């Protein structure tokens, strides 16, 4: 085995390759379904397959770059991209990505280059951020989905209204989104989005809600703008991680094989499934992904020598984490596929059943 395999990259067998394609497919379906990047599934999935955290993030952000490049065009055609807003966010998002790459690379290099601890600090750090951020996201989604629907009630605007009171100058106008935002609010949001995109590849989980809840941007524009932003963030992240030597193009290409088909199917699912179902199912899937990552944490703690237990547990914890993650992904993607198939069949059935009524005419 070439030394570069054991130090940074993993050998890819047929079985590993197929599993990475499956990861890409499930991630793609979920991503098309909920409109996020799917990194919340693919990054930990690759880590479960033995890929180090930093390479998982680097390879996934490269995958995100290519995917966003393909997807943003359609959003732009629909007028859902606020390029001006994206450029303002990008200014600090690039700083956030660079910061994330620097921390990840530093932690990865800190491990013993010949021992088991190589990459463990980075894996632990990525897992901790992953668990923290995605727990918050999943609980918010579930709370939103389970609260009683009230006519006219939208997402909470408390933060927007609160920040709006200060009107910290300079205020920047965004005609496409029809909002005005203080530059001092834009900059930290961009920084946080970039940092999370660079750390765990889920910048959209911060960027989109921030645009909606903090800036007051319409949902469709927020999603389109995030995808547009992802092109630049993805490109910058990919280049940075590649410069540090943490992008495995083989994994990126295998992810593409699954995700670019999956994303179409997921996006089709959105048309036929209610929004509440989308939020509920996504919330549960993310929670299980978080649980799966939490199960793997003791392994990294053990590798760092912070806790001690029988090494045989490493195997069981890894297996448990992997099974849970794949169960969540396959279950979630399976539910989406089932809905899509049902709708597809139903659509075939009802295409010709146009209801035509001729009520009595009153002059």
């Amino acid at each position, binding site marked *: 085995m070439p*030394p*570069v395999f054991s130090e940074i*990259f993993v050998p890819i067998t047929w079985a590993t390759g197929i599993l990475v394609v499956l990861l890409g497919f499930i991630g793609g379906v979920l991503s098309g379904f909920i409109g996020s990047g799917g990194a919340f599934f693919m990054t930990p999935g690759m880590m479960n397959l033995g890929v180090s955290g930093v390479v998982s993030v680097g390879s996934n952000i*490269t*995958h995100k770059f*290519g*995917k966003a*490049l*393909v997807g943003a065009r359609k959003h732009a*055609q*629909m*007028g859902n991209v606020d390029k001006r807003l994206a450029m303002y966010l990008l200014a600090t998002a690039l700083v956030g990505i660079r910061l994330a790459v620097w921390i990840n690379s530093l932690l990865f290099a800190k491990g013993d280059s010949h021992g088991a601890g190589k990459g463990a600090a980075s894996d632990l750090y990525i897992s901790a951020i992953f668990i923290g951020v995605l727990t918050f996201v999943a609980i918010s989604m579930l709370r939103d989905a389970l609260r009683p629907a009230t006519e*006219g009630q*939208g*997402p909470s*605007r408390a933060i*927007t*209204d609160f920040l709006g009171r200060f009107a910290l100058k300079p205020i920047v106008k965004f005609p496409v*989104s*029809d909002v005005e935002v203080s530059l001092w609010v834009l900059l930290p949001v961009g920084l946080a989005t970039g940092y999370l995109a660079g750390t765990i590849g889920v910048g959209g989980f911060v960027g989109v809600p921030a645009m909606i809840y903090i*800036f*007051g941007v*319409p*949902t469709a524009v927020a999603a389109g703008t995030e995808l547009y932003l992802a092109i630049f963030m993805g*490109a910058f992240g*990919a*280049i*940075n991680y*590649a*410069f*540090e*030597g*943490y*992008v*495995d*193009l*083989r994994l*990126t*290409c295998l992810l*593409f094989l699954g995700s*670019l*088909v999956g994303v*179409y199917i997921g996006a089709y699912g959105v*048309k*036929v*499934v209610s929004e509440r179902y989308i939020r509920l199912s996504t919330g549960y899937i993310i929670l299980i992904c978080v649980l799966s990552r939490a199960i793997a944490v003791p392994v990294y703690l053990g590798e760092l020598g912070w806790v001690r237990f029988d090494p045989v547990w490493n195997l069981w914890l890894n297996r448990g984490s992997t099974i849970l993650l794949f169960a969540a992904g396959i279950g979630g993607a399976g539910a989406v596929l089932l809905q*899509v198939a049902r*709708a*597809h069949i*139903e*659509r075939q059935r*009802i*295409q010709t059943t*146009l*209801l*035509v*009524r001729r*009520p009595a*005419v*009153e002059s």
Partner: protein
Amino acid sequence: MPIVFICSVPFGGGKRLAQSLAAKLGYAFLSREDVVAKANECGIPVGKLEVAMVKKPAVRERLARLQQRYLAVATDTICEKAAEGDLVYYGRAGHFLLPGVSHVLRVRVIPEQTQRLEAAMAQTKLSREKAEVFLSAIDEDIRAWVRFVHGADMDDLKRYDFVVNLENVGLENAATALCGIADLPDFKPTPVSRRAMEELLLQARARIRLALDERTADADLTVRSSDGVVTISYMPRQGSIASAIPEVLHDLPGCRELRCTVASTNILWIQEEFRPDAGALSQINELARRWGAAVELIRYRPEGDGETPASRPESAPRVTAADGGVEDDVVETVSPAESAFRETLEQLVHEGRSGGSQTVAGSPDRLLAAVRPDISYSLVVLGEVFLDKPPAARMRMGRDLGNFLAGRLKSPVIGTAELSAKLRFGAGQVAGIAAALVALVVLYALIFTHQGPLLDLLGGASHRARPWVAPLVVALIAPLVAGLYGLVASALLRLIRLE
């Protein structure tokens, strides 16, 4: 006689002008307050809606249903009152409610600023400085409201027939002048404009009924009407309400036929003459079937040079019923073109894809105004227009119209010639996809048969020696693979008709 719309901002003297005009003309007077009261009766919290729309743009998607209901109530209130007799309406932007109705006189009132400020101070008991800030904030909120509710700029003077500047003209003199203007033949009702108003009323009533019935209240429905035919589109996931719609609307006055179409999205097809046997129809039908879309037809008759003396170039669109958009008082016999248009529509109805139809005559601005802003179109197909022009001019003008629409509609606009690219795998497309597939296979083969050197370049000794090569390789290969594979994947899904 026309419906006179007086549009102004609060404290601007517009209401007094409208009341004075109504008294002079002997017309009934209706104001925005009446519309708001009616909306509140119908369970629409207009105050909350205004605050939400003006201050909280992020909740737009969820408020869109309420907004549509409000517009329906406003249209219904104005049309019903106008049906009783002549009417002067005072409000912010009521004239936007009756597109296609030509017997409306739209007047914008520019207030006398000092008087406005004093009126505001007297009524609100605010200091001069605070009153100025208050008026400025109100104006901005109203602009935002009009922009969102009507998708238009209320300060766009092309949207009005007359502007009264109270800085220069006294209120009573302005009212006297408007009396004469209201009597001009340009603003007289015609059978066509009356029918257009009846259609709007029918559409508004249908929407209100559906909104008030608990079975359909929460559904996202698109309501269109043309020539007494009401077309309702509903989402596939709301299939359970399909049977309720005819029950809710079974005795709707003026509705001679009801069509319910299940649709996930909409395709708008604009053309000058439709033929049921044309290839474009079957292509659009096929596309609609794949997308689960409703197809809305607009028969567009561009304006000829100097035609239709009564037309007003920048006025609202002449959206007419199925008589072809003529503006004279004579009801046409059905022409072959009209007959073909109806047959095309019938074919869409038969296929279960009808999203309604309308005929628009006039400038591209009128065509644009006829496109409903509340309907999301996945695609706009622009067929042959300007048929009376020579082929070269027709092509150029058609292309200009396509660019005009593409620049203003939030939907992709394509020509019927490009439709085949969306559907068929011609020799060129097959060759392109095959080339992409071959390139992909070669790329993947190269990557997976040269893993050692590649990984060395990406993170091994070569990378340590030349770290800048890896970013170049990544920046080149990732988008290339994504682009090529995206092309192949979308083509494959198109083949299995899953788009």
